[in-house]
């Protein structure tokens, strides 16, 4: 067995151990912990990048390492690193819990890394739970006035229910096919096209990931958790966690190819419901994070649109968009957490005068928001276009039309954010001070958003190579 195949996971396990030891100290050393976390996760990004082209099977073929999984592992490592870069100021988390904060962020990352490599149902379930349980702890870690507890309980309950759905679905699939390996399930399911057992099982199994992606009707947790959790935790849930969910949905949806119409129609309905509901409700939100929660529900609809094409081009679009979403959503959250230095929940109106308080942040905000809205020349636009193109190629004319109309609707609330930042001015609000690393991060994010939006070819080719191992 080649150790490098499991290298990233082992490495992050090592980080988790380090922080476990650090969390045992009686006197917390906040600054030191932060530097260790940032340094270690930075090395982790390089390591996953180095492992990008590893190939192989592990653990009785329950665990596959290929380009598809490695791309997402890289994304997860990057997500963790980015979240840590904005964690220099964990105002809302008690100091003695800082080491635990890093510990659980690392374990959830390990869980998700294992998740994207799993090709066996039980491994998938165990990895999913590993990542979920860490998040269940992270959400109520915030020092709050009860809202954190509400968020935590809601997240736990809805997560548990969707886990239940998923187990139920897994039992159907296992019962119908007699195996837990995805590669063996695929041919056996196609023999069962006549009976609905496989279809129901598959959809129920996917429910676990609908929950993570906050697809309608598993979206109820999103607004409260986004608002209730500490800004950094929300950032992680909104970026890395979504990427992992998309990866697994792509893997599982490939099983449904045999079911054709019935299966895709179910996804079409979910996709339309998600994006319409998310966009319409987002319009009336005043809290920035709640608005972003509804925007993530709407984006879940776009992701599903790529998934349900069941075609190479749609999968490419989804992978591209998942990576793009990670970057652009992070950019917005970065602005949010830099403006809300004391870790409070930010109202959209509190962005007032940002163009004066910090021109750099307001530039990042504009780019991030326009990218989320799908305005060119940003990665958000290119990703959306790739997904729409593949959906149209499969003949989903109405779906694309509804998606495009939704894009218009969403622009309204995205513009309200820009309106607040650019137009309203509140002289009472002080300038926002940025440290040098954060400045560099701003420039890097802006360059990525524009650069890969205009030159998407490299990513598309990479995604194309990755998709081969899934479909």
């Amino acid at each position, binding site marked *: 067995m080649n150790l490098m195949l499991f290298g990233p996971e082992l490495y992050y396990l090592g980080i988790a151990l380090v922080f476990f030891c650090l969390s045992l100290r009686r006197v917390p050393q906040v600054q030191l912990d932060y530097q260790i976390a940032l340094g270690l996760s930075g090395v982790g990004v390089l390591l996953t990048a180095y492992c990008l082209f590893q190939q192989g099977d592990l653990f009785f073929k329950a665990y596959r390492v290929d380009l598809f999984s490695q791309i997402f592992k890289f994304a997860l490592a990057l997500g963790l690193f980015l979240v840590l870069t904005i964690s220099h100021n964990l105002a809302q988390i008690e100091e003695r819990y800082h080491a635990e904060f890093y510990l659980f962020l690392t374990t959830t990352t390990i869980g998700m890394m294992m998740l994207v490599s799993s090709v066996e149902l039980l491994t998938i379930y165990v990895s999913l739970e590993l990542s979920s349980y860490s998040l269940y702890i992270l959400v109520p870690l915030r020092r709050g006035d009860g809202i954190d507890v509400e968020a935590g309980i809601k997240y736990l309950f809805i997560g548990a229910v969707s886990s239940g759905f998923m187990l139920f679905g897994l039992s159907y699939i296992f019962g119908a096919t007699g195996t837990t390996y995805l590669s063996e399930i695929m041919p056996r399911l196609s023999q069962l096209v006549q009976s609905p057992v496989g279809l129901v099982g598959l959809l129920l199994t996917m429910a676990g990931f609908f929950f993570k992606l906050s697809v309608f009707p598993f979206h109820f947790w999103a607004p409260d958790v986004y608002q209730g959790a500490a800004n950094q935790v929300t950032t992680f849930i909104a970026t890395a966690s979504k990427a992992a969910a998309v990866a697994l949905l792509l893997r599982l949806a490939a099983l449904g190819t045999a079911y054709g119409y019935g299966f895709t129609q179910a996804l079409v309905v979910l996709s339309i419901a998600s994006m319409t509901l998310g966009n319409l409700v987002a319009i009336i939100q005043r809290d920035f994070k709640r608005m972003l929660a509804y925007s993530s529900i709407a984006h879940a609809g776009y992701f599903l649109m790529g998934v349900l094409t069941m075609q190479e081009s749609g999968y490419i679009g989804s992978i591209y968009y998942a990576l793009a979403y990670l970057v652009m959503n992070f950019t917005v959250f970065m602005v949010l957490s830099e403006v809300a230095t004391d870790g409070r929940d930010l109202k959209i109106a509190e962005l007032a005068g940002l163009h004066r308080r910090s021109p750099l942040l307001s530039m990042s905000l504009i780019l991030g928001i326009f990218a989320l809205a799908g305005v060119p020349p940003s990665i958000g636009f290119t990703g959306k*276009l790739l997904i729409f193109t593949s959906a149209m190629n499969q003949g989903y004319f109405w779906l694309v*039309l509804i998606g495009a109309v939704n894009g*218009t609707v969403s622009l309204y609330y995205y*513009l309200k954010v*820009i*309106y607040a930042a650019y137009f309203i001015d509140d002289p009472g609000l002080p300038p926002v001070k940025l440290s040098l690393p954060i400045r560099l991060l701003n420039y890097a994010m802006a360059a990525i958003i524009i650069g890969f939006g205009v030159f998407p*070819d490299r990513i*598309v080719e990479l995604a194309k190579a990755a998709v081969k191992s899934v479909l």
Partner: protein
Amino acid sequence: MLLAPPLGLLILLFLKEEQKFLIRAVSLVSAGITLGLAIFTFVTYDKALGGLQFVEKYEWVKTFGITYFVGVEGLNAPLLLLTGIVIFTGVLTMWELQERVKEYFIWMLALVTGVFGVFMSYDMFFFFLFYEIAVVPMYILILVWGSTRKEYAAMKLTLYLMAGSGLIIPGILLLYSTSGLYTFNMLQLHAAHFSPWIQKVAFIMLFFGFGVLAAVWPFHTWSPVGHVAAPTAVSMLHAGVLMKLGSFAILRVAMFLCPEGFQYWAQLMALLATTGIVYGVFVGLAQTDLKYVIGYSSVSHMGIVCLGLATGTVDGLNGSVFQMFAHGIMTALFFSSVGYIYDRTHTRDIHELGGFSKIMPVASAFFITAALCGAGVPGMASFWAELLVFIATFKVFPVQALLAIAALVVGALFALRVVQNSFFNAPNPKFVHFEDVSPFLGLPRMILIGALFLFGFFPQFMVSMIKTSVVPFLQGM
């Protein structure tokens, strides 16, 4: 040409807000280079050879058939020239801007990059990409530097245009996926021969989608409000150039790719265009704000463009493209002079201005020239353009032509009354102390007037250029 504005934009990003003169200078230089290159392409374009020239083509995303494909032909060369002139004079016009200068010019150059891109792209992906780049900065430009109900106007304009995009994307993708070629290259798609049903659906979606930007009645309501709210140079760019993107896109994408769809919907196009002409004229008459007057006259002039397109004949298209050019220059002149007057007096009310010509003879002369051009006085560029369109329309849609001409004649009479009321009545004593335009600030307006007369006296320059590609264009349909 496509590179100059983004380069200027990049330099601007690294300048400080305090270095106002440097910021303006950099913008002016990049606009000047753009204008120079536009003139260069216009003059050196080989009319005898025709077709696509100055082509640049790179493979962009192979998997999805996206190529970077830009070029110049007779249809877009005049519009490139127009954009060059308007951006150059636009930067000069905004020379006096004091507030948030850096951001202003950054957004303005971004917008211009988009405009050039749309005019030159032959790949639908890039066409749409640039289209949006041109449209989106408007929101911020109006919101921050605008006047008169700017929040409402900015939001309305953006939502209208984005709703248009909501129709355009599915329309474009429908053509892309039904062609079976998996390419966004328009020239290849043109050869794909879509089924009539697809063409009809796609055409109407694209027509309405782009029609929003071209202010086709009944989707025009954002346009007067937007023009009024926008700062001067943005009004110039917007009415002068951006609206042309809409009509140009109808020509380049909708008519080019769906000829049968066009035949099917031509009647409707003509009807909407005529309604727009008549409506624009009569609503414009009732306005007392000079910018509203211009805004509604734009609606009617864009109606003429659309009417020319609807005829689908050589003369009609010639006139239509010519009208895009002439109207662009003319409206830029309009807004430029009104902007100047407004900056001084803070009013645009016709009656309040009274006999403004006695106070600022030169500034008023600019406006009056534009008004005469709008009324279609011979010797100006738009005279020839309108003439061509109406000749063509009489052959194809006689009733609509008659209605439109009648409306324009009435409009011309009333335009003269507007001029009389605001410039030749008794002067308003409040404004007596104002000084007239300085030669430097007058320069942009002089350039615009020069262009109007140049192509008014030598329309053959323009018509022969447009013809080189209109004829093959129609044969291709």
